[in-house]
């Protein structure tokens, strides 16, 4: 039955008009992904009137592809300018931008785009394998389990990243606390707003992302002069892109591991792409033979988060279809579009409309392939950005960053907040705090609190007896101990070599 449905889904791609609208969706998705401030939600909202006048069998692929490909577009600005298009691109900051600084922008883009494109493809096979058991799996996981799974991801990044473990933990906890600012969804009470109306809806994502990552890099670039790439040359860009593509095949085990992680995290309702990419990165570092290279601009640190970023979308869509619970706002729009078609996502979707479910998953795969191919062809030209002198790049990026931040909610307060977060970003950057851990804590903090309180409400203290919770706590303790021991050994070996 599964094979039959899969074959039927493949047949739907024979319609050239559907492919044309998919291509349009890919182009729009790449554009909204590249522009900071305009994410897939804004893109979908922008084209929703257009999608409504189209027949549903063209509108749905257009919308799904637009959402799926925007992360690919965001990876371009993340690698080149340290500006994450969305939270899903944040993990790429850790090694993508350092590679650009080393003059390997083309290689980083090649690896990032190939890894994410291939991650999208593998997700379809994982979906095929999981269709018979997906509903049981999703329903077996409870809120408390999800809360502690999220905590494991944050602990991994805080402890295993470069620099001081203490500063990593402070950063992760600060990020979690940042997500608690504003109205709490469960009680409707404002917290830590200090009377400010602006903070009622919480700390907004884009001003924080731009302030933490883009502003400090641009100010440093302007202060130090030169170009983003400190070595290398434009001529090497084309060969570098091909080298990046080959890197994914060289590290195919790492790519596969990251894609599987991305898919599994995608299945868990609500965690989203940010959690998937950071978990894949942390796992890649923990299992690497050379973990010290991570964060300095190593290609493995690019392959891992990108492998997870698109496979997560496949997993999330499978859960949306199987249980009818959208993982994020973009999936909610997809859910709305399905309902518009007269289909009600839920267990029946995987039994009565399995072919359509596969069609939707295949649309993601094909869209990712087209998007990655387009970006790969354009990557050598994109990579030239790394060689633009700071006297030109600084004002251009600052102008686009601030206008994007304003466009995000149409509020001047966001511009001022970006400046404030920029100061904080500059301080944390130069004093060795872990900005990705802070950002990850912020992204996942809201969900962590919600799941934890739900878990306490339903299970009480017994939640600590759940196998997934116990395992998660043991993993966190092990990560903390291993991080401390590793640093002790490093300190001793350094001391020994100094004495020698």
């Amino acid at each position, binding site marked *: 039955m599964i094979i039959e449905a899969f074959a039927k889904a493949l047949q739907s791609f024979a319609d050239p008009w559907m492919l044309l609208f998919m291509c349009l969706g890919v182009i729009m998705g790449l554009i909204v992904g590249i522009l900071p401030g305009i994410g897939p939600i804004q893109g979908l909202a922008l084209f929703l009137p257009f999608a409504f006048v189209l027949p549903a069998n063209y509108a749905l692929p257009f919308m799904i592809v637009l959402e799926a490909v925007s992360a690919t577009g965001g990876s371009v600005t993340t690698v080149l300018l340290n500006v994450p298009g969305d939270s899903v691109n944040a993990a790429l900051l850790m090694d993508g931008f350092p590679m650009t600084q080393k003059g390997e922008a083309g290689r980083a883009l090649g690896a990032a785009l190939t890894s994410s494109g291939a991650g999208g493809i593998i997700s379809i096979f994982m979906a095929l394998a999981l269709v018979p058991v997906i509903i049981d799996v999703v329903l077996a996981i409870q809120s408390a389990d999800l809360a502690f799974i999220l905590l494991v991801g944050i602990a991994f990044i805080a402890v295993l990243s470069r620099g001081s473990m203490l500063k990593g933990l402070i950063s992760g906890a600060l990020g979690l606390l940042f997500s608690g600012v504003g109205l709490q969804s469960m009680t409707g009470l404002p917290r*830590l707003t200090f009377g400010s109306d602006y903070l009622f809806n919480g700390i907004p994502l884009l001003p924080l992302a731009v302030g933490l990552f883009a502003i400090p890099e641009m100010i440093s670039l302007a202060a130090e002069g030169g170009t983003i790439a400190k070595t290398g040359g434009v001529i090497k860009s084309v060969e570098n892109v091909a080298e990046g593509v080959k890197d994914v095949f060289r590290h195919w085990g790492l790519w596969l591991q990251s894609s599987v992680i991305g898919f599994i995290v995608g299945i868990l309702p609500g965690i989203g792409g940010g959690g998937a990419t950071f978990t894949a990165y942390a796992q890649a570092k923990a299992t690497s033979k050379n973990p010290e290279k991570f964060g300095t601009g190593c290609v493995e640190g690019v392959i891992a988060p990108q492998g997870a970023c698109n496979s997560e979308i496949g997993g999330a869509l499978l859960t949306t279809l199987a249980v009818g619970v959208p993982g994020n706002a973009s999936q909610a729009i997809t859910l709305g579009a399905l309902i518009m078609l007269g289909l009600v996502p839920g267990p029946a979707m995987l039994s009565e409309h399995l072919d359509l479910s596969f069609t939707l998953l295949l649309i993601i795969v094909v869209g990712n392939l087209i998007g990655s191919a387009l970006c790969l062809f354009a990557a050598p030209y994109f990579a030239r950005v790394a060689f633009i002198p700071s006297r030109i790049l600084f004002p251009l990026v600052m102008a686009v960053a601030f*206008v994007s931040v304003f466009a995000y909610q149409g509020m001047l307060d966001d511009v001022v907040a970006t*400046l404030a977060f920029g100061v904080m970003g500059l301080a944390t950057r130069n004093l060795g705090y872990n900005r990705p851990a802070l950002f990850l804590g912020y992204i996942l903090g809201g969900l962590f609190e919600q799941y934890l309180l739900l878990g306490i409400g339903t299970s009480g203290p017994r939640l600590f007896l759940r196998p997934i919770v116990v395992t998660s706590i043991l993993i966190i303790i092990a990560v903390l101990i291993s991080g401390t021991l590793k640093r002790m050994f490093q300190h001793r070996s350094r001391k020994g070599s100094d004495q020698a």
Partner: protein
Amino acid sequence: MKMRADTFFIMAIMGTMLVAIWDLLRMEQVYAKLVPLILSSVVFVLAAVALAKSVLPKSRTGTVVFRDDTDEREEARSSLRGYMAAGLWTIGFVLGIYLLGLTVAIGLFVFSYTKSHGTGWLMSAILTVFTLGFAYGIFGLALGMGLYKGLLFIWLGY
């Protein structure tokens, strides 16, 4: 210098956490304050440990090496000047947005920055037009967003 900045930053974190804890303790609903209260306490304790590590004297072993660090200090001063200049440009740009609006501020900022950093008149003008066109084209025309006009122009009735 770096150690002193780090110490000040940790103290700022601790101060902020104390204010957060004080604010949260005043709330009545346990469900609303539980997680942020735990987190701000954790951050406070971790920052206190970091502060202790930062200010307590480290045990010194080995030989003391005397070296001339004049060049290093000069480099640090020059780097600080660069950061101050870039920071002031950024603050000026945000102030410009606030007073003159996005369109005028972007034009002024891009042109004056590129021109004052050695780019020719023509190139500066082209870059300014390009940036303005990009910002206005995408956000103003395509997305139909009203770009902020600026306090001055709003006050003048435009």
